[in-house]
């Protein structure tokens, strides 16, 4: 429980809550605090306990141990109505069997403020209408709730929760069945409510990017426990998402929305591990992005170089966790980076060269390929279109490529073909060179 001095800032305290269903434990020792006016998103895979936690906070479920405090009040000690005056809830999907009008439904939000013998006053009507204006459904007042669209219904339900004039709003996946524009509309609304009205908002999200974009803090749950809690940038990391969701993601920062995002990396990981074989990739300018991903997905150990920082290939390598020989942004390859590249080549079992554009700055990478062949390593060239002009060095690059072929490099026309050659080499390193 929060101490008296700081309590005026704390909206909700979840204190060491555990909960079990008949089928097993759903929450274990969950503790965290939500400040007043804060917008907190709960994310996690299915079965992590997100909705259960929301159930406990809203008192639908009674925790086996621990407690939930609304400011300083244990919610178990509050009456049904007094809790509903402080806390509104927007459920995932509301099944309404009878044809109430939108206004009727929103007015139900005034119930906690009315006594059993009381009737709605003009003040209640005013508050209901004001809530409907905030969520932009005032024009639907006389429509039947069974006849409006999903996005509209979601905003009607938020209006009903607002009509309770609560200080805390709980939502269970508020954007689940909505199209993109309705999703953004609902999220913008929530953000402005927490911002302008100092409403404390706790919401479960399916979509972690939506949560990251709008929430002040994110609570990452896994197997009934809090895995991590903090600002979106500290929660949406490759490691966290891999641990909790079992998915590899690329994490980036969008300057357009000023938020972090994570994109799952496409393609199923193969079950075969080829980790004992290291493939060194010589690429650049984006030509290595797809090969790197394929190689990693198919279980190879991958290194790459030399790559300029800020190059697409560099960012992909970073996000895949590949060791690389880096070079400063937009700079020609220096001796130091080249040397580092050669070290990586020495540590590999085969070298793959993409058909990157050859310029003065990166011609050293072709020298590195020569070095590989001279060290006796198998070298595979991927040349998609032999007639395309990718040489910006007045023929020097083309000459080196020709030299590589003369020295016994495997020439392949596609990445698939190159991967086939690689697999042949791995299975039969001695006969490998004759495979083409």
């Amino acid at each position, binding site marked *: 429980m929060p101490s008296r001095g700081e309590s005026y800032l704390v909206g909700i305290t979840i204190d060491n809550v555990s909960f079990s269903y008949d089928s097993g434990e759903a929450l274990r020792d969950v503790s965290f605090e939500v400040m007043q006016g804060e917008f907190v998103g709960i994310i996690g895979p299915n079965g992590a306990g997100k909705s259960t936690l929301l159930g406990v906070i809203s008192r639908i479920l009674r925790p086996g141990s621990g407690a939930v405090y609304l400011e300083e009040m244990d919610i178990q000690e509050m009456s049904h109505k007094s809790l509903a005056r402080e806390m509104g*809830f927007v459920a995932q999907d509301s099944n309404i069997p009878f044809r109430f009008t939108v206004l009727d439904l929103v007015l139900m939000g005034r119930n906690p403020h009315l006594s059993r013998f009381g009737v709605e006053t003009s003040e209640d009507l005013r508050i209901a209408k004001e809530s409907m204006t905030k969520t932009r459904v005032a024009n639907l007042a006389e429509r039947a709730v069974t006849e409006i669209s999903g996005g509209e219904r979601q905003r009607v339900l938020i209006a009903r929760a607002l009509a309770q004039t609560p200080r805390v709003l709980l939502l269970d996946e508020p954007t689940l069945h909505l199209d993109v524009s309705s999703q953004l509309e609902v999220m913008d609304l929530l953000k402005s409510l927490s911002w302008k009205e100092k409403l404390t908002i706790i919401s479960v999200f399916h979509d972690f990017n939506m949560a990251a974009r709008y929430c002040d803090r994110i609570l990452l749950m896994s197997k009934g426990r809090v895995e991590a809690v903090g600002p979106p940038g500290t929660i949406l990391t490759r490691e966290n998402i891999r641990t909790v969701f079992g998915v590899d993601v690329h994490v980036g920062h969008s300057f357009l929305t000023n938020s972090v995002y994570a994109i799952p990396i496409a393609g199923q990981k193969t079950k075969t591990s080829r980790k004992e074989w290291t493939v060194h990739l010589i690429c650049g300018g984006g030509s290595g992005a797809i090969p790197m991903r394929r190689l990693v997905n198919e279980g190879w150990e991958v290194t790459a170089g030399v790559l300029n920082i800020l190059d697409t290939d560099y960012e992909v390598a970073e996000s895949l966790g590949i060791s690389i020989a880096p070079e400063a942004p937009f700079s020609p390859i220096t001796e130091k980076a080249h040397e580092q590249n050669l070290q990586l080549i020495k540590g590999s079992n085969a070298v793959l060269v993409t058909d990157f554009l050859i310029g003065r700055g990166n011609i050293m990478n072709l020298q590195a390929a020569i070095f590989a062949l001279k060290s006796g390593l198998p070298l595979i060239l991927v040349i998609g279109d032999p007639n395309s002009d990718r040489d910006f060095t007045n023929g020097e690059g083309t000459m080196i490529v020709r030299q590589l072929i003369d020295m016994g490099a495997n020439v392949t026309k596609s990445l698939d073909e190159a991967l086939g050659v690689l697999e042949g080499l791995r299975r039969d390193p001695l006969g490998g060179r004759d495979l083409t």
Partner: protein
Amino acid sequence: MIIKEIRLPRVLAGALIGSGLALAGTVFQGVFRNPMADPYVLGVSSGAALGAALAIVMRLGYSAVGVYSVSILSFLIATLTVFAVYGLAKVGSRAPVITLLLSGVAVSIFLSSLVSLLQVFSGWELHRLIYWMMGGFSYIEWADVLGVFPLITIGTLVTYLFSRDLNIMTLGDEEAQHLGVNVERSRKILLAVGSLMTAAAVSVSGLIGFVGLVIPHLTRMLVGPDHRVLIPSSFLTGGIFLVFCDTLARSISGSTELPVGIITALSGGPFFIYLLRKSRGRYAI
């Protein structure tokens, strides 16, 4: 003389009982979020009938407690029945329409067979029991009207006080809790009140089916789902409907009088089938 001693109590009782059954139906449909629920379908009527039959056979009707002993025993068993049916039908935290109808029918058949069993062993009281069972207002006296009046009145008032709760409870238990309704308590009170009105009706007039199903529906179509309007409206239409049916029953075939239950069932049965067809799957939550 005829008007004052025979016609007037009969019309008043008909109105009160029609109103009571219609309100009981409204309550059950709201509480179970299910437009198919009514006292008859849920077996509450059969429970009330068993209680009343027991009271008649045990000659409680002649005891000091008088008319009320029939109603009280009827009320007790009706209440037990509705909670038993609800308990049986419950899957998790809700009672889906299919299990609700099935358990209602099962419990109803069981209780009806107990009533039949009572008839076999009733001896001297058989005559009275059978007339009562057929359902009708032929033997209504002022005492019956005065017995039923306070029960239906109490039931109506309590139901009306819970009309906002009923509105909110149609959204589901969790939603209702979020909106500050003490669902468990409200549901117990409402089911008890619904059983009370059913028991009051059944103990006087026997089994009259379908009023509790048809009237709330028709009224909802007319005035909408808001219980604050629906409850007084059902009260009125229920009363009017049953008095009308009783007038038909009395006059339709000349000299012989038909039990009013036949008239209500004749109109209610097809309506129930119509509802079932129309809502196929929609209420199977």
